[in-house]
């Protein structure tokens, strides 16, 4: 078992023929992901990496039965691409693109929600179900199959955490890089219950960062709904207070979004909070041995 994606998931790539799209599609295919085609407007009818290219997402979905789209289009066009995916019956859009305007993502996510399409990202490494399906830009070989679910705001910390878990002789069910932009798709609160319901997942690692209050919300949710052990690391304990111009961001969340505040909230919810990022794997092992 796993969450959201597995070896049978059919994936199309928006921005298939671009430089990054090509490089990472190849890597995903080599990992075993069923990439069944791609979309590049104006290049419909061509073949790329041995797969058909379509002008529209709708055509790609009709011809291939794909349910997931991996999006690599440039930032100025990413909202359009997400909305096209939502309009074409895609169930999950994994948005890798970095630098998407916040306003665009606000509209895109609202439309996706209206159409019942889940999103991951933007500005994220993607999602991987170990040794089955990689939809994103993570180095696949780090993710060995196992029983630990992983949710992370940070791309490279996702790799770091998985690497540590694997070095402890454990492995990963599914790892999701949710991204750290102001507007993101699936977050801790939506992913935690999926891991809770997944038979194979026995522990959950969550990696957070300073800013915003998603981790605080997650802490409350974990306390009430999650029975599996959760191990958390929050990056930015030593980050200096930013030279902000205004105060408005801090007012809304009712918090300043510091690492300490998040770590305290998670600890109070019964989460194993690690202070050193090098102790993630070790702590997962300890938590599992106590079960």
């Amino acid at each position: 078992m796993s969450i959201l994606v597995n070896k049978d998931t059919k994936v199309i790539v928006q921005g298939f023929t671009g430089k990054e799209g090509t490089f990472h599609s190849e890597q995903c295919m080599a990992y075993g992901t069923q990439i069944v085609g791609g979309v590049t407007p104006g290049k419909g009818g061509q073949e790329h990496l041995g797969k058909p290219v379509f002008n529209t997402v709708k055509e790609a979905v009709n011809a291939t039965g794909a349910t997931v789209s991996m999006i690599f289009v440039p930032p100025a066009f990413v909202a359009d691409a997400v909305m096209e995916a939502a309009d074409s019956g895609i169930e999950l859009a994994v948005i890798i693109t970095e630098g998407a305007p916040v306003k665009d993502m606000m509209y895109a996510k609202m439309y996706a929600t209206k159409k019942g399409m889940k999103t991951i990202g933007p500005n994220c490494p993607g999602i991987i179900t170990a040794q089955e399906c990689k939809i994103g830009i993570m180095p696949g070989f780090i993710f060995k199959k196992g029983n630990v679910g992983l949710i992370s705001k940070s791309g490279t910390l996702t790799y770091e955490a998985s690497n540590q878990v694997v070095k402890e002789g454990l492995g990963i069910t599914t790892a999701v890089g949710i991204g750290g932009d102001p507007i993101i798709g699936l977050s801790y609160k939506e992913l935690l219950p999926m891991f809770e319901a997944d038979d194979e997942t026995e522990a959950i690692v969550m990696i957070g960062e300073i800013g915003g209050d998603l981790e605080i919300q997650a802490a409350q949710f974990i306390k009430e709904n999650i029975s599996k052990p959760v191990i958390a690391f929050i990056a930015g304990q030593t980050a200096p207070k930013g030279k902000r111009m205004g105060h408005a961001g801090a007012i809304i969340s009712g918090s300043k979004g510091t690492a300490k505040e998040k770590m305290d909230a998670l600890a109070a919810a019964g989460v194993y909070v690690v202070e050193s990022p090098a102790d993630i794997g070790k702590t997962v092992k300890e938590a599992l041995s106590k079960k």
Partner: protein
Amino acid sequence: MNIHEYQAKEIFRAYGVPVPRGGVAFSGPEARKVAEELGGNLWVVKAQIHAGGRGKAGGVKLAKSLEEVEKLAEEMIGMTLVTHQTGPEGKKVEKVYIEEGADIQKEYYLGMVLDRTTEMPVMMASTEGGMEIEEVAAKTPEKIIKVAIDPTIGFQGFHGRKLAFGLGLSKEEIRPFIKFAEALYKVYMDKDANLIEINPLIKTGSGEFLALDAKMGFDDNALYRHQDIIEMRDLSEEDPVEVEAAKYGLSYVNLDGNVGCMVNGAGLAMATMDIIKHEGGEPANFLDVGGGANPDTVAKGFELILQDENVKSIFVNIFGGIVRCDRIANGILQATQKVEVNVPVIVRLDGTNAKEAAEILKNANIENIIAATDLADGAKKAVAAAKGEL
């Protein structure tokens, strides 16, 4: 990106958000000329820096004569203002804004920002205008009225009424207030702002609402479609090293310690700082070489780190996804040819093409490049090297 008060007010004016009349000046005589043109017998001289808290620091002063305007402007230009938002080093004042005096009857606070919880822009108002709004939020949160505005329906009357009644405005004040708020919403959305703060928003004796102050910040990701905003950028307000870093797609923040860091990804970069501290050292910087790193940007990263004379060792911590480790390895080699790297460099490369990278570094055989096996090992070695114990 942030802009100055006078620039924000220019934008406000263009959108029909009422502001007092005023003009910018770079010298005392210029300030006097602006005041003369404005007319009247009361002016405000305001230091233009990208930080709040100017009033308390002596950056906002009243003048009752043209001579006084000139004198105050002369004094302010060139001075370094230290406010709670500038940091202890303060900010140098290079220009002032001269504004006509206003007949203040009551002060309010009005702001807009993205609310990450509702994922919509939220407008906030408070009767506690002129106060530190953070303090109001902490002590009397009930005095801040918030309304999230769904951008698919835009600003509606009910949004405005919720704020207006919340502020306790009288019947005849409600209409001008709503008009003000609606125009402000349009500014926020049209310009891809991520922050607007008006503190204070004032009601004048004649029942008008005026933005007495104005702060605006913008979504950097959307700047490509706002040439007018890009032109308002004041590089003198930004850290020159950070600006230089940004040219190469690097994100750099200078810190006080002596262990330099070069990392890919903001999360891992922060975690690297955390672990350096955890191992008993102090990070000298935050440096994210980003997803598009190539030999040139990595070499630039070394230059940036080595500009800081406190740096005694450098920890290169790369976990390759998009960034391929062999590119980083080549960058390290190129950097050692371009820049004299006279401190130990502890290198930890893992992920995509890590083997090729290790091979590249090994073949280069450079004395002060030290390999680390993992995060903890790298941090320990970097801290030890900075202390001269490696």
